[in-house]
């Protein structure tokens, strides 16, 4: 319940646009970047954020040695993303950035 209000707060507040990059290089692809992207896409369309979040793929970000799928939000790197925690990461780490806060 708390989570929902948090998301609502973000959505109702002032919003910026952001660029969300997910690595689709060979290693991340095999680790499941497709599923992560699918999760992000679903979330974005559910919350009608298409105009705010520009979701794009990226070729190898050169961080193959770091575990998880490489994800970058406006140039900021997020570690340890997996298909399993993608939804959580989107809500807790990516969405708050839209309102500029944490």
């Amino acid at each position: 319940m708390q989570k929902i209000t948090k998301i609502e707060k973000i959505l109702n507040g002032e919003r910026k646009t952001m660029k969300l990059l997910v690595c689709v290089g060979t290693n991340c692809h095999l680790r499941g970047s497709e599923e992560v992207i699918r999760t992000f896409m679903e979330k974005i369309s559910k919350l009608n954020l298409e105009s705010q979040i520009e979701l794009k793929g990226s070729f190898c970000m050169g961080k193959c040695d770091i575990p998880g799928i490489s994800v970058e939000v406006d140039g900021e790197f997020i570690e340890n993303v997996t298909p399993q925690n993608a939804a959580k990461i989107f809500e807790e780490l990516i969405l708050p950035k839209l309102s500029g806060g944490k």
Partner: protein
Amino acid sequence: MAKVIYGYWDNKKIDNRDKFLFEIEDDENLRELNFFEPGNEIKAFIGWKGFFIFDKKVNIIETFTKYMTKIASESCGKCTPCRVGTKILAEQIKNLKNSTNLKEDIDNIKKLAIHISQTSLCGLGQTSTIGLLTFLDNFEDELKNEVENKVEKKSYNEFLYMTAPCIEACPAKVEVPKYIDYIRDGKFSHSVGVVLQKYPWAATCGRVCVRFCEFACRRTVVDAPVGIKTLKRFVADKEKYVTDGWFTKDLIKEKKPEHLKVAIIGSGPASISAAYHLLLRGYHVDIFEAMTEPGGMAAIGIPNYRLPKDILRKEISIIESLGGNIFYNRRLGVDFYISDLFKQGYKSIFLGIGASKGKALKVPGENRSLKGYKTGINFLLYINHYYINMGLKVELGDKIVVVGGGNVAMDCVRSAIRMGAKEVHLVYRRTEEQMPADREEIEAAKEEGVIFHFLTNPSRIISENGKVTGIELVKMQLGEPDESGRRSVSAIEGSEFIMSADMIIPAIGQYVDLSFLKGDEGIEINRWGLIKVNEDTLMTSKPGVFAGGDAVSGPATLIEAMAAGIKAASSIDDYLSYGKVRFSKEDKMSKILKALRIRDKEEIKIPIKYTRRIKVEELEPSVRKKIFDEVEKPIKTEDAYKEAERCLRCYRLSMVLTER
């Protein structure tokens, strides 16, 4: 020698009986029939369209008796003419030897033979007497001569081989009519068992195979080919819980000594199929995979909606259930070398490393790890996967430079435009007329705004902090034509110029990643950058090291790779058990049948009811865009029965007589 003394094939009579041997012309098309194994002459051949006799001493009665007895034993027994008729016929031919009334006996045989061929239900019976009939119709006197004059005849060694056009079309030689038969009989687990004899990926192949078998299907002559692939997927899916239980270590009948270890490099289709057959033969198998996931090109190159990843992973896990090991993150040439494997006690090595490496430009400043540098094939793979299948754009930058003049290069420039790149340049070292790409592609690319630079070649890649910033290009000039008629090109000195770029895509061909060869001498590479092997054994120039799949053939299909794995496994088994690869009678027979064009679709003489080929339902396009599940829906059991009924069972028996 392929000097046909007499014979009859495909409505053509050959009669050279009154000629001397040296007068008989060699038939180029029958070159495969010279020798069986080297030095072992073929004396006669009987097949589904007639027969050839290469030696006057061939014992006719004995030959046809052997052939007919084999037919009788292969008959499935569902129709009387084939089940009973062929037995009687075999007996009657055998008795000709002591015949008192030859003319009447031959007439009886003819009548029965015609009857069998006209009333049998499937291809086996229908073609079983063609050889005999063409002989009796055209060369009856030879038979009379043999019986009446009691000429001394020799009996030779025979080899009989039963197959069908679809089996011969399949690189892995899966017994298609057999597994369709089992579906028709409702024995689904038997059916999938037939497939599993050849490779462990029944469900995978049932989804993504290119279906050489269906292209060879004779049903095409009547209406449309049997849905062979769909049926395979049906049984593989239906029986998945049953087959799960089959793959345990108990399946391995005879364990080979523990020290006979085999190392397999890569976990793509060729490697998995080789591992499977080696494990079933009782060897200890370790697979080394460079990536963190198994499957090779099957995992990377095939989108999820065609081949769900969990299905592929499950079918790869069969290797582990059989006791094989897969080690990940172990790259040959970086983490270990071939010589290390031999030192660790591996007795034989299979290289299933694929041909996934795009060719580099070989210019200063080039580095594969540069950001903004991607070879054409890799670029397309991901663009296809993420853009075309998922609608996700890939970040490329504003200015893209593609190098190359083939269709891959065209795909790259046109994809880059669709990705939203502002400026897309194509660099090709020859002229527009010499571009190997399709004309339509070039025109379309031009219309879409691609900027072409002909007679231009890259000479240096410029980068900053590990990121591509530009490319140095040089103008080229055409020289004199060489022997092949193609005019050479050379750089014009001092014509270098620099173009800024965010991304450089070389699309100039694919090859095998040869970095593994470091420190390993003895494995030869051919001029196309592929591993050189003996075609019959798949052994490389280094004893004990075998290779197969794309690494040998260049980019090809899943089923061809799996077929290479089967062959490699049998070669490795021979090598470890006998020290050399033995001659394969089946392979030779396949070559002969290919030369005799078994895959040609002959006219079907018996009436066949038209039936509609099964239509596989797909998800609605509107749904498809949103979810990434499999697009093709499974078929219903009753539809599978109906489809299986359509198979004509085009079995054919072929027989060779050889010296030894």
